[in-house]
């Protein structure tokens, strides 16, 4: 099963502050431990919402774009790590090993399980599959 570890934003990530050398080195060691254990699949850090971020709100089917920055810092996402593990407890065990100095000891993380195709089972109707196929093809074409 796959989980996403979401690193919530804070004042520093939203200000685009560069991490300290110590944090960079701890983060690299943490990621390496997860890669060595065959657990980490992917991970990225996101730029502050002020750097090109946007919110797209649909109303009556019509989109309205609002450019960043956004005020609700704690609700924003600053980065994520995707892991594959045998159980939720194993995922939690990895999350607890996050470098404690991140966010000056007050980092906020969120763990979420990723849907996999088998979760949809028979209800994953052919029409929806077709739609998804179409979307993915377009996404892949952009790569």
């Amino acid at each position, binding site marked *: 099963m796959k989980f996403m570890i979401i690193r919530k934003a804070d004042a520093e990530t939203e200000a685009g502050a560069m991490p300290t050398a110590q944090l960079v080195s701890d983060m690299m060691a943490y990621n390496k431990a997860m890669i060595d254990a065959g657990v980490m699949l992917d991970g990225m850090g996101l730029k502050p919402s002020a750097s090109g971020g946007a919110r797209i709100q649909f109303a009556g089917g019509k989109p309205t774009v609002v450019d960043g920055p956004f005020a609700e810092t704690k609700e924003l996402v600053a980065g994520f790590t995707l892991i594959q593990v045998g159980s939720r407890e194993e995922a939690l065990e990895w999350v607890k090993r996050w470098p404690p100095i991140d966010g000056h000891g007050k980092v906020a993380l969120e763990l979420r399980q990723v849907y996999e195709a088998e979760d949809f089972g028979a209800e994953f109707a052919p029409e929806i*599959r077709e739609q998804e196929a179409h979307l993915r093809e377009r996404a892949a074409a952009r790569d």
Partner: protein
Amino acid sequence: MDATETHRTINAVWRIESARIIGALARRVRDVGLAEELAQDALLAALEQWPREGIPENPAAWLTAAAKHRAIDLLRKRTLHAHKEGEIAREIDARHAIAAADFADAVDAALDDQVGDDLLRLVFTACHPVLSPEARVALTLRLLGGLTTDEIARSFLVPESTIAQRIVRAKRTLAAARVPFEAPRGPELGARLSSVLEVIYLVFNEGYAATAGEDWMRPALCDEALRLGRILAELMPDAPEVHGLVALMEIQASRAAARVDADGEPVLLLAQNRARWDRLLIGRGLAALARAEQLGGALGPYALQAAIAACHARAQEAAQTDWPRIAALYEALAQLAPSPIVELNRAVALSMAFGPAVGLEHVDALRSAPQLQGYHLLPSVRGDLLARLGRHAEACEEFKRAAELTRNARERKLLLARARSAADG
């Protein structure tokens, strides 16, 4: 936290830490079986104490320390025993005493500096050729995967006692053969690595063959094999075939959701809904294949199979498949590991690339191969090619023959249906 939750947490910590702990202990006590038992004792202590006293702040360090203490006790007892028996020279006694005193530091150092080396030694020991393939698989899942005997037994649909015995016997065999706790070097490495890769791929295929509705432990074997492969790829970054195997498994695993339809019936590769293929795993598989290729040299059998799987993964639709390349890759594979089954696959690829007549020519050349006598796919493929050439009566006969040979009821139904439709022309 209730007892069940605590147990689950202990299992999770165990899954993450056990191989490191066993590896560090085995390097000191020079006996993998004994190291595993000491680590198991530490696990039992955790299962007993943690529900009562709460989970320690650093559960991994706690387990390591507990295992370490048990090992020190054991070394002391051994020294004492040797002393009493008077069989061992004073010099060796002294060495044991030093070993016991040094032990705590040595294990710490081993955990810090030599985790990689110890894990590698553990992999090669668990997959040692002195053991039967079944024993290698059980021991690998136990020592490297941190799986319980019960979990391994459920994965392989055998009684727990069978696996327990298999593991006990494997440990005894290793001890009796005085297999050193070492990773092979030089000319020996190639053959020993093949054995390791074979074990991992066997685990993967066992999970891949599992069908929906079976115990979830069986499909979980695919993830376990992937995890072991990814670990090995980090331990041996310069070994192209390790990346080749990882690439093959990542790409095959990417198709897991598309392999069966809503009724649990298998879906053939070319008929699969490619939207259900896992793009993340495909990306990882292609990256692993690129690493194998960048390391240079001719591709090995796993990398070649991964390259074939990659041709399918890269095609957005079945019609876009690069069949000439697949045919060439099968040819390279056949040269490396000659096999009529590989040749049959090559014939199919040739027919897709250059037409059914070319494919049929190759299939006909295989009809006398002894390994293919009684193999239902030979008449099945031949029937398919004959049908495409409009030779319906012959096609019908081949499908009927294939139906007689297959042991799979679903497949027989499908082949008989094809025989009927060929008869109708």
